[in-house]
C-alpha cells in the first residue's frame, strides 16, 4: 500500500499545505517538521509558480513572494530532500503543469523520487489530459492526485474510478481561500465517488475553522487546509513555526472528533 493511502488508515486525515520557499526555504523545512509533529497526516508543498490560476489572493501572494525571494524548483527539491530525512509523513507536491513540463518531465520525476515525494497535484491538468504525465508517474511511482469539483458532475465517477492516492474533493466553486460558508452538497459528491472506488476522499478549498474541518471530515476521509495556514505564515513570517504548529494541532484534534 502506498504511503499516501496509509495516511488515511488511522481515522480521519488532516492534510496541511504550505507554499515552498515562503517566506524562505529554511522556514518551509521547519514548518514541515512542525506540522508532522502536530499531527498532520499528509503534507502538500506548493512549488511556487508565476501564475497560480487555481489559487486565491493569499496563496497567490505567497507564490509571488517565494519567487521574488529566489526560490526555484531546484532549491525546493534540495530543501525537501533534507527534510525528508526528518519526517515520515507522505509529502505531495502541488504545482502547475508548466513548471513540470519546462523542467523536463523525466528529470522532474527523477528528482521527486530522490526527495521522497509521494504524489503530485496539478490543478491545471484536467483528467482528460492526464496522459501528459501518466507514463512518468507510473515509472517513478509518484501518485497523481485527481481533483473533483462540484461542477464535475458525471465526470466524478469517471475520474474517481481511475484515481490514485486520494481524491481531492473541491468544496466550492472558484479558487482557494478561506470561506465563511460552504454550500456545496459534499455528501452527494462523496457518494458518487463511493459508488466506484474505495480510494480515500479529502475535502479542501475554503476550510479554516476546526468546526468546518470536523464537519467536512465527517462526510469524507479527511480535510485539507491551505490558505488558512499560509495566512499564518504571512502574519508571522519566520516566526510562524509555533503558531502553525498550534493551529495544525487544533485542526487535527477537530478532524479526529469527526
Amino acid at each position, binding site marked *: 500500500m502506498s504511503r499516501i493511502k496509509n495516511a488515511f488508515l488511522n481515522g480521519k486525515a488532516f492534510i496541511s499545505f504550505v507554499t515552498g520557499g515562503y517566506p524562505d526555504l529554511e522556514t518551509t523545512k521547519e514548518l514541515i517538521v512542525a506540522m508532522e509533529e502536530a499531527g498532520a497526516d499528509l503534507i502538500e508543498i506548493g512549488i511556487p509558480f508565476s*501564475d497560480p*490560476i487555481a489559487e*486565491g489572493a493569499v496563496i497567490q501572494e505567497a507564490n509571488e513572494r517565494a519567487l521574488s525571494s529566489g526560490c526555484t524548483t531546484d532549491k525546493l527539491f534540495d530543501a525537501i530532500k533534507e527534510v525528508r530525512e526528518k519526517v515520515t509523513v507522505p509529502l505531495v507536491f502541488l504545482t502547475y503543469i508548466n*513548471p513540470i*513540463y519546462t523542467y523536463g518531465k523525466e528529470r522532474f520525476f527523477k528528482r521527486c523520487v530522490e526527495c521522497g515525494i509521494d504524489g503530485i497535484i496539478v490543478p491545471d491538468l484536467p483528467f482528460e489530459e492526464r496522459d501528459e504525465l501518466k507514463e512518468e508517474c507510473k515509472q517513478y511511482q509518484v501518485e497523481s492526485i485527481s481533483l473533483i469539483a462540484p461542477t464535475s458532475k458525471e465526470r466524478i465517477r469517471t475520474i474517481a474510478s481511475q484515481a490514485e492516492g486520494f481524491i481531492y474533493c473541491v468544496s466550492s466553486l472558484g479558487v482557494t481561500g478561506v470561506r465563511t460558508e460552504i454550500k456545496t452538497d459534499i455528501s452527494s459528491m462523496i457518494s458518487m465517488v463511493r459508488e466506484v472506488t474505495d480510494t480515500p476522499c479529502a475535502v479542501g478549498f475554503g476550510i479554516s475553522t476546526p468546526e468546518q474541518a470536523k464537519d467536512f471530515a465527517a462526510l469524507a476521509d479527511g480535510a485539507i487546509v491551505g490558505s488558512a495556514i499560509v495566512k499564518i505564515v504571512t502574519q508571522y513570517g519566520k516566526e510562524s513555526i509555533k503558531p502553525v504548529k498550534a493551529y495544525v494541532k487544533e485542526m487535527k484534534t477537530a478532524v479526529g472528533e469527526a
Partner: protein
Amino acid sequence: MNAVNELEEAYDHYKNNPEFVAELDDLYKNYAGRPSLLYYAEKMTKDLGGAKIYLKREDLNHTGSHKINNVLGQVLLAKKMGKKRVIAETGAGQHGVATATAAALMGLECEIFMGKEDTDRQVLNVYRMELLGAKVHPVTSGTQTLKDAVNETMREWTKRVEDTHYVLGSVMGPHPFPTIVRDFQKIIGKEIKDQLNEKEGRLPDAVIACVGGGSNAMGAFYEFIEDRTVQLIGCEAAGLGVDNPKNAATIANGTEGIFHGMKSLFCQDEYGQIAPVYSISAGLDYPGIGPEHAMLYKTGRASYVPVTDEEAVRAFEYLSRTEGIIPAIESAHAVAYARKLAPEMDRDKIIVINVSGRGDKDVAAIARYRGIKIYE
C-alpha cells in the same frame, strides 16, 4: 473542464446551424459594418516604391477593431446556450469594449478584467466599457497586464460557471477556444481573398498582420494556408528589442510550454515561470501565442518577425501622414514590417496589411512617447 466540454458541444451544434449562421451574418452586415474595406494604399505604395499595398480596414468595424467579429459570434452563442452573463479579459481594451458592446446589444450582463497597468494606459476604454454597461475589474496580481487579466477571468469563470460564458478574446486558451475564435475571425481572410480577386484578379503575395495571442493574424491567414504562394507574416512586439528583456516576442524568444490551457510557445525562464513581458502596445503584451500560430511557425508555413516599439511608433505616424489612417499601435507593428518588405519586392507583387484596429485609443500614449504630456 465541464464548461469547455459544454461549450464545445454547443459550438458544434450551432456552427453550421442555418439560423445561427444567418443571425451572425446579419449582425456582421448590419451592426458591425462588414465586409470591411480592402483599400489600395496608393500613396504608401508609391512612397515605398515596391510591392502594391492594400490595407484590410478592420479598423472601420463597429467598435474600431477586428475584435467585434469574434465577440458577436461568441456572445450570440452564449445567448443560445442560455447564459445570462459574459466575462472577458482585455489588454488594450479593444476586446473588452467589443464584448461590452455585444453584451449591451444582446442584453447580457458583462464584467471585464483588465490589468491595472492597462487600465491606467487605456483610461478612455475603461470609461467606454462602463458607458456600455459593463463592470471593469482592474487586476492587481502579477504583472498587472493581459496575462494576469486572463488568469483572473479564468478564476472568475470557475467561481460562477453555470450562467456565465467566458468570451476569450484570442486564438488561445483551452480547446475549443482557439478553434472558435479562429472560425469567427476567418471572415477577414475570406473577404481579402474575394475583394482582391475582384480588384486584381489574383491572390496576394504576402499577408501581414500583428500577433499577440494572434486572433487578427489567424483571421487574415487562415483562408490562405493552402495557397502556398501567399507568404504569411506575423509581426510580434519586440518592445525595446528582441535582445532586451523588455519585449513580448514569443516566437523569437519563447520555448514550448503548457499554460492557460494550451500547449504552445511562451516567454518563460528555465523553470517554466512565465516571463513579465513588455510592449508599448497593451494588446500585444502577452507572453504566449495561439497554438495554431506555433504550428504554422513550426511547419514553416508562416514566418514571424519582431518589430520594436520605436518601429511601430514610426509606422503609426507614417500611416497617419501618408494615408490619413491612424492605425492601432498593435496594427502599426504590421505596417512597420511592410515598410521594410515592400521596397524589396517587385512592383507587380501585392502585400495586404491587416489594419486590425484604429488608433484613436493610442493617440495620448504616442504623444507621451514623443515627450508631449497629453493625458486622456
